[in-house]
């Protein structure tokens, strides 16, 4: 556990003044690179005795890029959405003890001033268990990780017998955080019981779900925690080699993990005779060439073996996995949990969660909400807590219509069911899945049929083409949705979609096909009226489906600037400069370019 001295050392650094700048894929996209350079420049120019410290991301993406200033004697203050020109000012004011501009402070030392993190909505409902170090420590420094209690869990585990390690995880009740929620200890036990001189453990960091990025965040911000979990897993099952599987789209994640492996090897946490325990283990980071189906266990193994495509289970990887050897595959977050359980003890872990699923889970809340980000909450937290309390609810003037949970394999939960407590079983019974934990909030400006079409075309493109239902069936579903969104479908088609979807789900080979129709089945379950509206009245209530909307010029707003007429590729817009323009519906192809081009907002969808 983190002692007060360690915490102080981490917070303020050796010089007593640390300026944290998050460097991760998402913060870099928001401009953290410039902020970082600017902070260094300001510190140098003004001779501030501070250490500029690169950290991972906290998951509070809505305030990217942020910086945190921490000087001994002052509460560490977090400044959200900083612009480069504000930095000089912020550092100066903070150094003088003026914290008024901060978004929040880590803890309070007196009354007044900006709120402490425990007081703000986006933090106080969270239980930061695995993500405790995210945004606090330098992900590229193994010493800082050790300072926070890192590799202590490994040390504890190595003192135990292998069965005892498995027993610890069993009492904790940890379930796989990657989707299906399979008990982690059981996977380990099956692999442990296999008699084989070579066994593998694989960390599944493929994370292909659009809308989910907690694994990337965790591995970029605290890579050693994942690695430590992997080493413990390797010890428990008696493996000699571990592989961290990362997809090529996430290069920084792979770089950081590679650095972590290198450092751990140098300090003897990897290699021969780890911590004098006679346990030999080494880890390799494998960069996948990227395919959604690789998130599926057997496809992931196939990818490492240099092939593609999943295969029928059983035999399960725990008995016949990589190169035919017993293989345990665990998700990034699961392994981080393993390391944390060993560091903090089981009691700390089982405090949270439900009877059936213990502990916490990281959820990514994105889409139409005010505060997008990654939030770690106990399993069993209500959807509305995540969407409204933590993420701040819908954007002004909009209404939350549904929440899509679990990526392309998941389903849509309507706004009426926001009281649902999220755990593996309850989500499944309502037609969604926990998946990796991505929540995409859909508001009334989105069309549910279009959402279903998006996911169906996604899984269609990602289908590996091995088994028939997924390869051909998804094509038919996709065509059908295309017809629906262009108003050419009949009511019978909706029935066909239902029947076909169920057939694909039940008879496909792997989990991808088995869950691919979920988006369409769940939207049919809760939003059938929207489907019917598309068929019967040939109308898209949300005005999204291009072929069912019409563009028109609002004469009150049009100033005759001719912008729209110029971008129109088919010449459907007429009107001379200064006059109200008209759209000829016989020619209009509804490409929507005029709407984007109009500087006055005079073109509207009807």
């Amino acid at each position, binding site marked *: 556990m983190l002692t007060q001295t360690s915490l102080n050392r981490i917070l303020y650094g050796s010089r007593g003044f640390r300026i944290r700048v998050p460097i991760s894929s998402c913060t870099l996209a928001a401009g953290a690179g410039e902020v970082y350079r600017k902070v260094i420049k300001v510190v140098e120019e003004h001779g501030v005795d501070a250490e500029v410290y690169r950290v991972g991301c906290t998951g509070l993406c809505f305030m990217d890029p942020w910086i945190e200033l921490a000087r001994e004697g002052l509460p560490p203050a977090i400044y959200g959405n900083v612009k480069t020109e504000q930095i000089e000012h912020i550092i100066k004011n903070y150094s003088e003890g003026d914290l008024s501009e901060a978004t929040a402070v880590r803890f309070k030392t007196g009354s007044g001033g900006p709120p402490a993190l425990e007081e703000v909505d986006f933090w106080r409902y969270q239980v930061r268990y695995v993500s405790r170090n995210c945004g606090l420590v330098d992900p590229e420094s193994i010493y800082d990780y050790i300072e926070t209690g890192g590799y202590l869990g490994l040390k504890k585990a190595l003192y135990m017998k292998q069965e005892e390690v498995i027993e610890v995880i069993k009492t904790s009740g940890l379930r796989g955080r990657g989707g299906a929620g399979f008990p982690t200890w059981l996977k380990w036990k099956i692999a442990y019981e296999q008699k084989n001189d070579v066994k593998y453990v694989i960390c599944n960091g493929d994370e292909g779900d659009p809308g989910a990025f907690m694994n990337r965040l965790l591995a970029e911000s605290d890579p050693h925690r994942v690695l430590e979990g992997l080493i413990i897993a390797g010890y428990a099952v008696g493996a000699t080699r571990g592989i961290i599987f990362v997809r090529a789209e996430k290069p920084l994640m792979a770089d950081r993990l590679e650095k972590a492996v290198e450092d751990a090897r140098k300090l003897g946490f990897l290699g021969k005779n780890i911590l004098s325990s006679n346990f030999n283990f080494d880890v390799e980071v494998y960069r996948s060439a990227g395919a959604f189906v690789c998130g599926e266990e057997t496809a992931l193994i196939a990818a490492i073996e240099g092939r593609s495509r999943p295969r029928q289970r059983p035999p399960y990887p725990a008995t016949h996995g990589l190169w035919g050897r017993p293989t345990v595959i665990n998700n990034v977050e699961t392994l981080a949990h393993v390391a944390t359980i060993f560091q903090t003890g089981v009691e700390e872990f089982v405090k949270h969660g439900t009877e059936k699923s213990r502990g916490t889970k990281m959820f990514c809340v994105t889409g139409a909400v005010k505060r997008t980000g990654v939030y770690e909450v106990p399993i069993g937290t209500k959807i509305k807590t995540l969407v409204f309390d933590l993420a701040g609810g819908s954007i002004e003037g909009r209404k939350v219509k549904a929440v899509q949970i679990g990526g392309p394999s998941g389903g849509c939960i309507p706004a009426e069911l926001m009281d649902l407590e999220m755990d593996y079983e309850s989500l499944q019974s309502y037609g969604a899945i926990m998946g990796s934990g991505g929540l995409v909030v859909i508001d009334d400006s989105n069309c549910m049929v279009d959402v279903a079409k998006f996911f169906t075309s996604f899984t269609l493109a990602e289908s590996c083409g*091995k088994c*028939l239902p997924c390869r051909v069936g998804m094509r*038919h579903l996709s065509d059908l949705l295309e017809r629906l969104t262009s108003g050419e479908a009949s009511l019978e088609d909706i029935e066909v979609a239902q*029947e076909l979807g169920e057939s694909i789900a*039940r*008879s496909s*080979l792997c989990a991808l096909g088995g869950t691919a129709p979920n988006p369409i089945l769940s939207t049919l379950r809760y939003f059938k009226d929207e489907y019917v509206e598309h068929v019967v009245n040939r109308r898209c209530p949300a005005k999204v489906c291009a072929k069912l909307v019409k563009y028109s010029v609002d004469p009150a707003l049009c100033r005759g600037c001719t912008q729209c007429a110029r971008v129109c590729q088919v010449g459907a817009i007429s009107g001379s400069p200064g006059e109200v323009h008209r759209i000829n519906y016989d020619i209009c192809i509804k490409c929507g370019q005029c709407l984007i081009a109009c500087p006055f907002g005079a073109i509207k969808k009807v």
Partner: protein
Amino acid sequence: MVKVYVNGVEVEVPPGVPIIEAVEKAGYRVPVLCYLNDFFSEATCRLCVVLVNGRVVPACKFPVSDGAKIVTESRELDTYRRMNFQLLLSTHRIKCWSCLRKTSCSLLDLSKQLNLGEFPVCSECPLTGDDCLVAKGEPCLGPLTAAGCSAECTRNGVPCLGCRGYIEDPELWRDSMRDLYEKHGVDGEKLEAAAKFFWSFLPGELKKIISEVSRDK
């Protein structure tokens, strides 16, 4: 040896063998297509699906387990098999009149087994190449009539009149059939006349194709 129950019949099979062996031992049959014993068992066609303890699994790949209760026929399974077979057909451009495999076609066999009349009379007609009546310019309706008659008429040199009705899904054969008629220059009017003999109402799709053939000529 492990004991399994196929539709309630108890059989003993060696552990680890695919379910299909137990099913066959018990004297039942499941439709298979992609499965070639000992050579290919990747479970890709999903036609051999059976229920094992309530779970849908492919019989050709899924191993037996002790005490497993296997069901080979049910309404649910039938739906999946038909659905998957139709999906397969939807990507299959029917050209039975020129297909080399017509005498040993697993698809045709399966179509009969599952009772799906989606193949043309040509699949049963022994005439090929220059002997084919269409190739001789006759208005034979074989390519668009549902099979099942053993092609008695065409066997004896009489052009098919379509007494068994047309194939239901024109998507499957429209393109190839148009090519066929056009290639051999069959008279569209004669074709239409022949079609009217049995099909008092022509579905729109057929009418369109036939009139296109006659117009192109």
